[in-house]
């Protein structure tokens, strides 16, 4: 079926403005991705999954300008013992990064991996391709084709400390495209941390292949730059008895779209995806989640909380798909917003599609203001109104933050939330 002319023009213009990296094992997957992209076309507002989020600024050729924001806070995760990998506007910064070696894993850079044979050859773009059905994710295909760099992480054992990808934003017009592949062997375990605004516009894909009994922990903090834009995708496949736990905190940002596509392919696997976002004013945040249960006795949780004020917009599109043979599925989905004034809005589209007959799936979505009863109770005990409101806001976000297993990492996230609230206390 031919694409509408406008969509084709949009797609071809964008492709023409980018350079396809060549050389080595990734040539094949990149060429395939380019074909996929041309067939799908870049998203427009007419697309089902872009009704609530305008894709224009993410697809147009020119990068919308984004001022670099200088915060006064200590960078997040600074207290954590970790291996740092730094990118500035999507360009690897060797001087700022640690030596890329750590027991239990190997790290290579996509940009310098030029051999013809590589383990990542069978994975790069593979999970992304699977994630294109039944919902198209053209920005991810664009990423697979044109990513300039990224990390190829092969985890073979239990890794003693987290790997922290730090994305600095240095130029007002930077347009970064990064693609990471993480492959966890059976029994392996790692924690991946990500933070920073990355660029004026950031397109990132992370494919995570979690083999049987492996465990992957992910904690991400999308930084404070107000004008930054980001479209990120996580594609994960889970083997039996494996676990995937991802949490994202988003603070500010004029446009953030986070897609997370997970396929539970082995029995008894666990996938938890959680997010907390705090937005003030010109803020648009979209979480689009798709979890497919294709095995027996798996558990999935989607916990998303949004605090919105001064006209900020939050979007949640979350789906649980339970295939015919995925019996004993335990699925949970909650999306809630705390609207701190009448100008903010929350648009939620929870979806369940269940073909198995022996499953437990629950979902809920709410929007509300601060609980007046709770507020009065706290104030009657001497807690001033501003502080009481903050305490209730933190409490509102707690269910999402509690999805982080590691207490020290949860503390880091809570400190960011508290900082954001404190700066806005009236």
């Amino acid at each position, binding site marked *: 079926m031919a694409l509408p002319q406008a969509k084709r023009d949009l797609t071809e213009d964008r492709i023409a403005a980018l350079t396809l990296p060549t050389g080595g094992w990734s040539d094949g997957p990149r060429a395939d991705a380019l074909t996929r992209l041309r067939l799908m076309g870049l998203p427009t507002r007419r697309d089902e999954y872009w009704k609530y989020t305008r894709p224009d600024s993410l697809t147009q050729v020119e990068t919308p300008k984004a001022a670099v924001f200088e915060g006064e806070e200590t960078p997040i995760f600074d207290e954590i013992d970790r291996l740092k990998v730094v990118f500035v506007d999507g360009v690897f910064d060797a001087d700022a990064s640690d030596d890329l070696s750590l027991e239990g894993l190997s790290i290579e850079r996509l940009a310098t991996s030029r051999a013809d044979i590589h383990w990542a050859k069978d994975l790069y773009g593979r999970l992304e391709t699977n994630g294109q059905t039944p919902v198209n994710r053209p920005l991810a295909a664009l990423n697979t084709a044109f990513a300039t760099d990224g990390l190829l992480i092969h985890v073979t054992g239990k890794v003693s400390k987290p790997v922290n990808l730090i994305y600095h934003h240095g130029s007002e017009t930077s347009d970064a495209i990064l693609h990471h592949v993480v492959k966890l062997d059976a029994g392996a375990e790692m924690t991946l941390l990500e933070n920073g605004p990355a660029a004026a516009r950031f397109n990132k894909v992370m494919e995570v292949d979690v083999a049987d009994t492996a465990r992957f922990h992910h904690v991400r903090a999308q930084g404070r730059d107000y004008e930054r834009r980001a479209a990120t995708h996580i594609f994960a496949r889970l083997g039996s008895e494996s676990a995937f736990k991802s949490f994202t905190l988003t603070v500010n940002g004029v446009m953030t779209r986070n897609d997370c596509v997970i396929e539970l392919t082995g029995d008894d696997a666990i996938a938890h995806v959680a997010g907390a976002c705090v937005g003030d004013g010109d803020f648009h945040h979209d979480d689009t989640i798709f979890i497919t249960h294709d095995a027996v006795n798996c558990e999935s949780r989607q916990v998303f909380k949004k605090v919105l004020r001064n006209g900020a917009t939050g979007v949640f599109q979350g789906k649980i798909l339970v295939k015919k043979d995925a019996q004993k599925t335990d699925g949970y989905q909650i999306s809630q917003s705390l609207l701190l004034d009448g100008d903010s809005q929350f648009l939620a589209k929870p979806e369940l599609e269940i073909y198995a007959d022996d499953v437990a799936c629950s979902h809920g979505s709410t929007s509300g203001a601060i*609980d*007046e*009863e*709770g507020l*009065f*109770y*706290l*104030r*009657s*005990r*001497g*807690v*001033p*109104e501003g*502080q*009481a409101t903050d*305490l*209730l806001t*933190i*409490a*509102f*976000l*707690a*269910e999402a933050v509690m999805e982080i297993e590691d207490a020290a990492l949860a503390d880091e996230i809570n400190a960011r939330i508290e900082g954001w609230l404190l700066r806005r206390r009236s």
Partner: protein
Amino acid sequence: MLEIKNLHVKLEEEDKQILKGVNLTVEAGKVHAIMGPNGSGKSTLSYVLSGREGYEVTEGSATLLGEDLLDMEPEERAAAGLFLAFQYPVEIPGVGNMTFLRTAVNAQRKARGEEEMSSTEFLKEIRARAKDLKIDAEMLKRPVNVGFSGGEKKRNEILQMAMLEPKMCILDETDSGLDVDAMKLVADGVNALRSEGRGFLVITHYQRLLDHIQPDVVHIMSDGRIVKTGGPELALEVENNGYADIVTEEA
């Protein structure tokens, strides 16, 4: 300590007068009880004094140690020494009981220009107080009042009272939803806090709480006014004859 003069209060949202001229003085070191039938305005009085929204004072005054209560925010009233033990303590999911109490204690101290309590000092204090009220460490860690039984919620109110060391305590239907054992535990907690410098206003529908917390003065409230004041024997009269006699007698 607490001085209420000719207090008239109506609902903000509708034209309904609830309090129609309440006069009441609670002295330091004394326990006053307010009894009365449902809808007489007892709870409204406690809410107006603690600063809950939704009420409008149309006439009269209320002062705590000479300071105008009605002009203060709820948190300022608390810092000035007022404490209300809620009839229905509010559940606050996500906020740990301990965090909540420490925030409250230090917010009040800060408001009064006092030094904040250190965490060691606070822990020592709360453990001792909690033990007296048979509140275990688990209850201190749990979110405020979430999943607490009726008795646990009321004991938690008394724990807050003990930690905040208010000058004037108002107990709103603290006996509601309590069995005899739980009521005794709560009453013991309150009695332990009775002191020279502290006033109590115990609001209750039934006399039984007053068996455990012996009042110095008993007031009967009806239709927004205090219609009779007497000693502890007045509570017994209510127990035996109900409110009807007293209310008609005065009307």
